[in-house]
């Protein structure tokens, strides 16, 4: 019962911001490209529900467009992590102990030594800062996460008798990986994907906060927080809206992930019945 509450609450919280991001493509309350200095740093009112920033831009509109950047960067980065990590993990598990397995394992260890921030620093030093930079940095960091998870779980599946039965049925390694291993990992990957998505939102916020992510004038939540910092004693509301947007999105995704894990995990299911 509590599990489904988590899922509903999590989906609602994170869903609000996804919807806001999509809506922002067709409609936002105010134009954010033109500046209106006369209306700058207004506290929340009926006209501007979240107030205005130091250029007089509507913060609600900024948060909506910022959602687009944060969510897009995080989604693509996790996509890269999954798209590369899962096949690598499957291949490593299918050929356990082989040279390929060894190389993938070593590569994983190596990438873990570079937190995504350091990767972003390196890429920025070479190519200059951009949103793409953030995507690559977070994406690279996600590859070993998924590769490890996939390899570990696939290895325990390879020991199961139904895989042996499939081998006796004449299925080759690739078909077994695709038909039997992958579907049995899907729950796990959905859960981990949700959690990595939330971590990626946090990472994107941190990178754009230090100026290694999306560049102005593209708004992003981290960038908005960085801009608000010098004015925090004068206008604390500037820091509140984007910060809460990050917290709610991440919290929602985590609740969703935990709820899904409880539903999928057969061990917990058995306990409940």
């Amino acid at each position, binding site marked *: 019962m509590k599990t489904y509450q988590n899922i509903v609450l999590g989906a609602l919280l994170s869903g609000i911001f996804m919807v806001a991001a999509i809506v922002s493509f067709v409609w936002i309350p105010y134009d954010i490209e033109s500046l209106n200095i006369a209306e700058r740093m207004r506290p929340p009112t009926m006209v501007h529900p979240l107030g205005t920033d130091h250029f007089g831009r509507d913060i609600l509109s900024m948060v909506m467009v910022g959602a687009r950047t944060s969510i897009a960067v995080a989604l693509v980065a996790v996509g890269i992590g999954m798209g590369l990590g899962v096949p690598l993990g499957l291949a490593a598990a299918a050929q356990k102990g082989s040279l390929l397995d060894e190389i993938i394992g070593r590569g994983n260890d190596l990438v873990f030594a570079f937190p995504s921030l350091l990767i972003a620093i390196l890429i920025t030093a070479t190519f200059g800062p951009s949103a793409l930079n953030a995507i690559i940095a977070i994406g690279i960091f996600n590859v070993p996460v998924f590769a490890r998870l996939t390899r570990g779980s696939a290895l325990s599946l390879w020991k*199961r008798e139904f895989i042996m039965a499939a081998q*006796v049925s004449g299925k080759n390694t690739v078909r077994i990986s695709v038909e039997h291993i992958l579907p049995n990992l899907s729950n796990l990957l959905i859960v981990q994907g949700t959690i990595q998505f939330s971590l990626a939102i946090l990472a994107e916020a941190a990178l754009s906060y230090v100026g290694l992510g999306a560049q102005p004038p593209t708004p992003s939540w981290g960038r908005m927080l960085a801009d608000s910092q010098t004015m925090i004693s004068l206008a604390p509301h500037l820091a509140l809206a984007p910060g809460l947007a990050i917290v709610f999105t991440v919290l929602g995704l985590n609740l969703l992930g935990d709820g899904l894990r409880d539903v999928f995990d057969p061990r917990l299911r058995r306990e409940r019945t």
Partner: protein
Amino acid sequence: MTLLRIENLSLKIRGIPILNDISMSLDEGRVLGVIGESGSGKSMTAFSILQLLPKGSTTTGRLCVDGLDTLEASEEDLCKMRGNDVSIVFQEPMTALNPLKNIGQQVAESILIHEPNTKRSDALERAQEALQRCELPASRFPTTLYPHELSGGQRQRVVIALAIALRPKLLIADEPTTALDVTTQAEILGLLKRLVEEDGMGLLLISHDLAVVADMADDIVIMKDGQIVESGAAASIFQELKHPYTRALYEASSHVPERTQQSARRPLLTVRDVVRDYQLPRRSLFSAPEHFRAVDHVSFEVFKGESVGLVGESGCGKSTLTRAILGLEQIQEGEVFLNGTVIQHGKQMKHSLRRQMQAVFQDPYGSFNPRHHVGRLISEPLHLLGEAMTTIDKQETIAAALRAVGLTSDDQYKYIHEFSGGQRQRIAIARALIVEPELILLDEATSALDVSIRAQILDLLADLATTRGLTYLFISHDLSVVRSITDRVLVMSAGKIVEEGATNDVFERPRHAYTKELIAASPTLP
């Protein structure tokens, strides 16, 4: 004097009735055997005695251990009782010990809890004595060893040592040998018997295995679905077989299916001089890696229409050999032929060859992909036939295979979790049958089943062999099963086939010392 008295004990866990009106009693120095199939509530009876029940349990009735009513006693009194007056030995020795503490510490802990004034060095000394009593001599098994450095049987001795360190009045043994090999089982049972005699303990021996209990117990309780079906002195229970369930259990345990297999002198499977080496991790960077020889120059033949048994204890190499025959394992030397065609190891096997040989595995729960419905599961080998099938033909083939194993054609639309263990094993057989192979490898195919279900599956296999002229290679550690269903038997030990012959000859007149030991160790029904 009565040590344990259980009167009208009922147990519910979260509202679900588990035990219903159980009564039994046990005197000092006696052995009470509790027999039941899975789900009979026999282990929960043991946990009730110690009051180590899962959360949400409610018990009614009376349960007196040496004058203490454990249903009423305080947690403090229970802690004083556990390990001191009453001890327990569990089924799974591999996980029953803390992997991070050495065996001396773990045995000494039993002593230190109940006698906190003991000096640590004295406790360790007494732990050493307890281990010694359990036949782990100090010279070979110092207290500084960790559980992972011991075999399953040795770990079970440590568990027994920590149970008897304080010489309890009552020892509960919950399936103490189920996870062990038959020779180890015989040793552990002998050890328990000796300790009971020496200390005058009462022993509550819980098992699914009639033969194990029959050898040991003075009195017997037979349980089914949380109730006691029959109880009495061991001798009379087996002589009279009054209750129908007892009789059914007894007959299933010694069941011999009727077979009329016709074997030809044409070799179907030929294993010639097969060797399988595993490379062990290097001891140091510079030394050459060492090898472990799992299968050591094994040769044998299986003739068309025959039923051959391959018996051996865990680690003897029979699983590796099975995988090698199935072409799933690299081999270093030798060849395997199926119908005269050589099996190329480590390569994808030709479909026409693969379809001649199928397998049924041990675990009825693990051998199916839980996400596919039964129709898809059993039709998985169909692609080996090489011809495209229409959906209708395919459904008809699946239905025929299901009917052949005693299920209905509608079962193909269900998922595997809707079936019981015995039904699942039938589905596994259907999957093997669907491409009409000549040879079926049965890898411990009945080992995970309760005796009554096992008897049914053995009958089904015997029946299929007669009607379809199938050839079986039965790989099992269970001598009674192999004896009941095979014509010829191969005995494997340490990677080698040590004895081979007609099943009856080998069992009646074993020649090799290992076979003799194996047969002597197997418990038999009176």
